[in-house]
């Protein structure tokens, strides 16, 4: 169905905010291709191949078909009636916006990550690559990558920090069931950024036959662009669905931002709609002031890491800091370059939400809607009480429920002091 198509987006206009990046992969001063020379020829190849794929109706048709029949798209846009009513009770008269959930947690593998993996594995096959690698933090992108690698019969190695391997045993086992090799990374802090370093180290030695499926809208150009394009199915569907349900566009979009792929996927098709406000939620961990957080925009400065220039958590000498969040999927010291650009341009607001606020929202969503959200998505949900009060009751907020929370129940139990 063409509604899924990553090319089927509203027409661009002059001064469009949807024309980024430039031909060199820059979003304003962000993005770019900061990689070792060994990788440059492959990065240039990938860009050429992506342009060709984007223009190829057969590629498009296969992508759409897999999203519909394998992933289960379109994902519903759901009116969260009980949450709306609950929040309205605390709102001033005439306030308490109508809240819709974009149900990405209903996708195959339980999160939005699969949209991008389908697109990238089709590119890998098109380029004749015979081996897949990926990095993963919590394991969601690793599971999605292992899934598409199994579906297309390609061997797959997932790099995962040794600490995360220990913390995320169910996902490690899922990846192995799907036939992937999970390579624990013992360098550095043994978490997501070190897994990404190790994937890059593998790739630089295997460029001839290996495709690197990056999990978020970051990394060297053209990754931020192509991941965004594959994830834009979220916003494209939302636009059609809200027009059908309400006859108009939403007033506010809300999404959590780690690397930022679910957020850019929701936001991008609406960037030129000036009446649609957007809110990205960064993980504030134990609070920005404590230094233990993962809020690159609210607590970082621009720098260069993992192939792109973007906001980073770092010290005065440019050494990268460790991120902290209760949500493993947001626990990264950088952010996709397009978000850095949207932040500086003022088009999107980015606010921090702490571990404690996310935990409250997690429980509220479970009890009012019967949906167990991922801790990542819980950060977005945590912005709703304040925003619902601020917006009138005839206004509409769409929040991206990017993933389901089954994977997080042990973390949540631990945080709540419950033994299971």
């Amino acid at each position, binding site marked *: 169905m063409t509604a899924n198509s990553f090319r089927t987006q509203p027409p661009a206009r002059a001064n469009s905010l949807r024309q980024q990046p430039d031909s*060199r992969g820059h979003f304003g001063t962000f993005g*770019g*291709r*900061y*990689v*070792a*020379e*060994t*990788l*440059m*020829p*492959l990065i*240039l190849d990938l860009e050429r191949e992506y342009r060709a794929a984007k223009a190829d109706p057969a590629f498009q048709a296969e992508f759409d078909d897999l999203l519909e029949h394998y992933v289960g798209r379109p994902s519903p846009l759901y009116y969260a009636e009980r949450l709306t009513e609950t929040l309205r009770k605390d709102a001033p008269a005439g306030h308490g916006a109508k809240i819709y959930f974009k149900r990405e947690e209903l996708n195959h593998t339980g999160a939005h990550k699969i949209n991008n993996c389908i697109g990238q594995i089709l590119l890998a096959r098109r380029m004749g690559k015979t081996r897949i690698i990926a990095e993963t933090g919590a394991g969601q992108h690793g599971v999605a990558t292992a899934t598409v690698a199994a579906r297309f019969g390609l061997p797959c190695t997932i790099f995962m920090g040794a600490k995360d391997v220990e913390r995320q045993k169910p996902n490690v086992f899922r990846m192995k069931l799907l036939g992937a090799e999970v390579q624990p990374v013992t*360098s*550095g802090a043994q978490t997501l*950024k*070190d897994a*990404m*370093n190790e994937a*890059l*180290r593998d790739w*630089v*030695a295997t*460029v*001839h036959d290996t495709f690197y499926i990056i999990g978020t809208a970051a990394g060297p150009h053209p990754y931020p662009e192509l991941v965004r394009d594959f994830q834009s199915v979220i916003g494209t569907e939302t636009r059609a669905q809200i027009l059908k349900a309400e006859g108009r566009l939403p007033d506010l979009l809300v999404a959590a931002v780690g690397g930022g792929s679910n957020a850019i996927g929701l936001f991008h098709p609406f960037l030129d709609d000036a009446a649609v406000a957007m809110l990205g939620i960064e993980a504030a961990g134990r609070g920005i002031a404590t230094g233990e957080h993962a809020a690159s925009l609210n607590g970082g400065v621009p*720098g*260069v*890491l*993992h*192939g792109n*220039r973007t906001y*980073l958590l*770092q010290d*005065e*000498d*440019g*050494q*990268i800091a460790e991120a902290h969040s209760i949500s493993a999927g947001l626990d990264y010291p950088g952010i996709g370059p397009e978000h850095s650009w949207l932040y500086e341009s003022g088009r999107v607001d980015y606010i921090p939400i702490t571990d404690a606020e996310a935990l409250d929202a997690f429980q509220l969503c479970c009890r009012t809607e019967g949906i167990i959200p991922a801790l990542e998505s819980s950060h977005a949900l945590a912005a709703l009480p304040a925003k619902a009060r601020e917006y009138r009751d005839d206004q509409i907020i769409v929040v991206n429920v990017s993933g389901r929370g089954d994977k997080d129940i042990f973390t949540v139990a631990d945080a709540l002091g419950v033994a299971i």
Partner: protein
Amino acid sequence: MTRLSAAFAQGRPALVIFVTVGDPSPAATPAILDALVEGGADVIELGMPFTDPMADGPAIQAANLRSLATGTTTAGILAIARDFRARHPHIPLVLMGYANPMLRRGPDWFAAAARDAGIDGVICVDVPPEEDDALGPALRAAGIDPIRLATPTTDAARLPAVLEGASGFIYYVSVAGITGKQQAAQASVAEAVGRLKAATDLPVAVGFGIRTPEQAAAIARVADGVVVGSAIVDLIARHGEDAPGPVRAYVADLAAAIRAAHKERP
């Protein structure tokens, strides 16, 4: 003639040695650098430690973390370079590292500070020619050579872009991979160096995977310079504060092997 071009104009291949500054400690680095000179190094690459050295293998990754753990700072690295320059007016120094520490205070600040510390060239691993604007203009304005990397994946179509704006020397990364791993086949190195020399007048130094005097000698028969890094870093890891003696002896063996190989050159 710059210090770098003089180092490559001695009528024999130059020995280029890489060490990570601040490993095992900032205080121990000056004596190690002096040992490199005494052993016969012609060019010294000062590795700037970074938390995320994604082009490096286990040996140099570990050296980066050891260095940072002992409190190495950018100011400390520049001070070590400045003091070295006062002791050794003629040995060229090349800063090698990653973009983020180099760009943290802006490219102009970095280039000026490096120049004032007596730095001759800069190798920034993750700034390819496509992103030259980020650092190249500032280095050139400060009179510092931006040294470019060529690799086995740098094909003929791409080579002109790599050579454009390069100076000092060309660093040929002889294996597609990370530092300290396998060594490239001699024939492929000879072929690649020939291809580079046909396209540029700059000296070509070859690195990655060269560990022993025998390997260094083989490369010296075909290149203008031989870069040894991980093997020295391993020695420093093993001997810690007592590294200068063993490092001096090993560098002397490498230098002797290179000089002997050059005499046999057809």
